[in-house]
């Protein structure tokens, strides 16, 4: 929240470089690989120190797989992850161990992610023990401090997970992630299992921890409201591809990729008048299978702007200025000047500019899936 979103590149803490993760589908006696699930397919993204990057998308878009690859719970099929200047994409378990201190994960389900047979003290303290930090007395003090930091009481040290409510358990999960003072926390849907009132408490906690400990977050969530609140930049994924990357506020006021537009318009707004007034783009059908993703632009079968080119050519991720990248042949909310500049650059396929689909005057055609109040 504190970092300038423009400052990526040099100050990057994590760089995800053309990362691919395919899961093999094996069949038969020989367990031969017959097909592959293209969970993450060529994603490049860098996360600056102190920044929060939100990853959004429907289920099955590869956002969790990407997060797990970053903390190396999974080994990428191709591509690399560079953490603080070191390539970690191919490191073995032993070489990874010292790095585990630097990156931690908070999981979605507070009921499944804590061992029911262990006391809170050892759940939070075990990371310290494993990494050989302090003696048992020092560790105990440290754990008690951590419990206080996340809003629990030090007396909870000897309790078991079942004695806590969902929100409290999630706090234990956060304390455990914080124990080793990591630089990066990958939070995979950390609030989606919680009630709204508890959800707000949790988001506020994560934000104040970020300020206190200088944390960098990769925040995976499907709730676009939550993501907007916590993120500096947001990456939208669809079927394993990064389709749009933008500063948080800009994504909501000026989505370029039609998928983002549809996603935003589908979010129910707790305001009866607004929700009646706005235009709803209801996407037809479901997300296609990541085993056989559609040709060209992967979104084309559900896209209302799709033309022939979308079926044949995959759109490259193009920079539309202001750190706003999108992969689309028929970008929305882009004025003529930007479009000409972008089309002139090498990476863009020139014939993709289908005249009829271009927004001519940005003020007229600009799309605001979330209407202004009043």
């Amino acid at each position, binding site marked *: 929240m504190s970092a300038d979103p423009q400052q990526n590149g040099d100050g990057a803490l994590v760089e995800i470089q053309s990362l691919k993760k395919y899961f093999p589908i094996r069949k038969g006696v020989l367990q031969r690989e017959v097909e592959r699930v293209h969970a993450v397919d060529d994603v490049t993204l860098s996360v600056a120190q102190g920044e929060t990057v939100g990853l959004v998308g*429907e*289920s099955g878009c590869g956002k969790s797989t990407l997060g797990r690859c970053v903390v190396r719970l999974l080994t990428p099929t191709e591509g690399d992850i560079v953490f603080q200047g070191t390539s970690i994409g191919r490191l073995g378990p032993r070489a990874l161990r010292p790095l585990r201190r630097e990156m931690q994960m908070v999981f979605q389900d507070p009921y499944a992610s804590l061992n029911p047979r262990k006391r809170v003290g050892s759940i939070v303290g075990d990371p310290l023990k494993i990494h050989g930090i302090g003696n048992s007395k020092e560790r105990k003090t440290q754990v008690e401090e951590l419990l206080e930091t996340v*809003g629990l009481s030090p007396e909870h040290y000897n309790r078991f997970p079942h004695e806590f*409510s969902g*929100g*409290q358990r999630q706090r234990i999960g956060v304390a455990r992630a914080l124990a080793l003072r990591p630089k990066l926390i990958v939070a995979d849907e950390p609030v989606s299992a919680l*009630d*709204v*009132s*508890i*959800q*707000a*408490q949790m*988001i*506020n*906690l994560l*934000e*104040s921890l970020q300020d206190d400990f200088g944390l960098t977050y990769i925040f995976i969530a*499907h*709730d*676009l*409201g*939550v993501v*907007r*609140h916590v993120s500096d930049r947001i990456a939208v994924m669809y079927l394993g591809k990064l389709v749009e990357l933008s500063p*948080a*506020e800009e994504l*909501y006021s000026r989505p370029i990729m039609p998928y983002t537009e*549809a*996603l*935003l*318009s*589908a*979010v*129910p*707004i*707790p*305001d*009866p*008048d*607004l*929700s009646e007034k706005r235009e*709803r783009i*209801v*996407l037809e*059908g*479901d*997300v296609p299978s990541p085993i056989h993703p559609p040709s060209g632009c992967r979104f084309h079968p559900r896209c209302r702007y799709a033309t022939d080119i979308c079926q044949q050519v995959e759109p490259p991720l193009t920079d539309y200025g202001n750190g706003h990248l999108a992969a689309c042949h028929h970008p929305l909310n882009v004025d003529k000047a930007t479009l000409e500049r972008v089309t002139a650059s090498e990476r863009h396929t020139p014939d993709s500019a289908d005249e009829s689909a271009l927004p001519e005057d940005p003020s007229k055609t600009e799309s605001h899936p*979330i*209407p*202004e*109040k009043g």
Partner: protein
Amino acid sequence: MAERLLDVKDLKVRFATEDGIVHAVDGVNFTLDRGEVLGIVGESGSGKSVTAMTILGLTRGTNTQYEGEILYKGEDLIRQSEGRLRSVRGAQIAMIFQDPMTSLNPVYKVGDQICEAIRAHDDVSGRTARGRAVELLQQVGIPNPRQRVDDYPHQFSGGMRQRAMIAMALSCNPDILIADEPTTALDVTIQAQILELIDKLKDDFDSAVIMITHDLGVVAEVADQILVMYAGRVVEHGGKRDVFYDPQHPYTWGLLGSIPRLDRPKPKRLHSIQGSPASLINLPQGCKFRPRCPHAFEKCHEEPGLENRIEQKGHLDRCWLTVEEKKRLRVTTLAGEAVGAA
């Protein structure tokens, strides 16, 4: 005047457990007319699902105690025999559950499950029932219903399974459709499809809908009247516009304020309701929301009744604050700005 379908009067549901008596529902009143959509909002443990399940007699058991009445077209469902309830259930009042993954039987074909529901209530041949199943799948927007009727649930995606559940619920043309968090397990894009579908089918089948959800956004879209529940009680009840634009209870303000909203500028910190929901075994004395309420005062040790305290008729709430105080106090909360601690 539309026909009055349901009249719930002072419903109380208590469960005896090892730890003590759980007051799951504690004095709920509402009515439902044909064509109307009632939204029940609340957090987990607020009693919204128990209310719905009690209407269908799904909470019956040796450890359950009831008080009050559930009048369905004048007939008290609480005091009906299990046999009579069975003929109501599914035929006149149907339910859609939250999790489409677990509410279909994985070892039977989707079509057979729909046929079973049809033939349980109507004396028709297997062939007719199957024809109707295909027709229903078509109505809920499943492509190629003639082929898909022979699919197993695992061959359907989450959204399609929920559509199949809706088809099953509508198979006997019920008067009332109870949807318990029908879209919570689904992605937003699929949620939008399902909400649109329920809205359309409600008119096609001329039913009333009870929509249970924790998502105020969903309620804003579909409901006509709203019931806000907390700790087994209704804390606020009113028309959709009244509840959203003139909320009277501090809990409702908190709910409205704590959602990160896309239609507003981002607040620095989110408003959050302090503490966690009340235990239903040891309920706090007086107003149940008092321990978490930032505006609680002396009088709150005595429980306020659900009354109409403002000019707008039919807008009820359970709060001792005066109308002027409420207007003044709710502003910051509703803006979603945090006041003080996390």
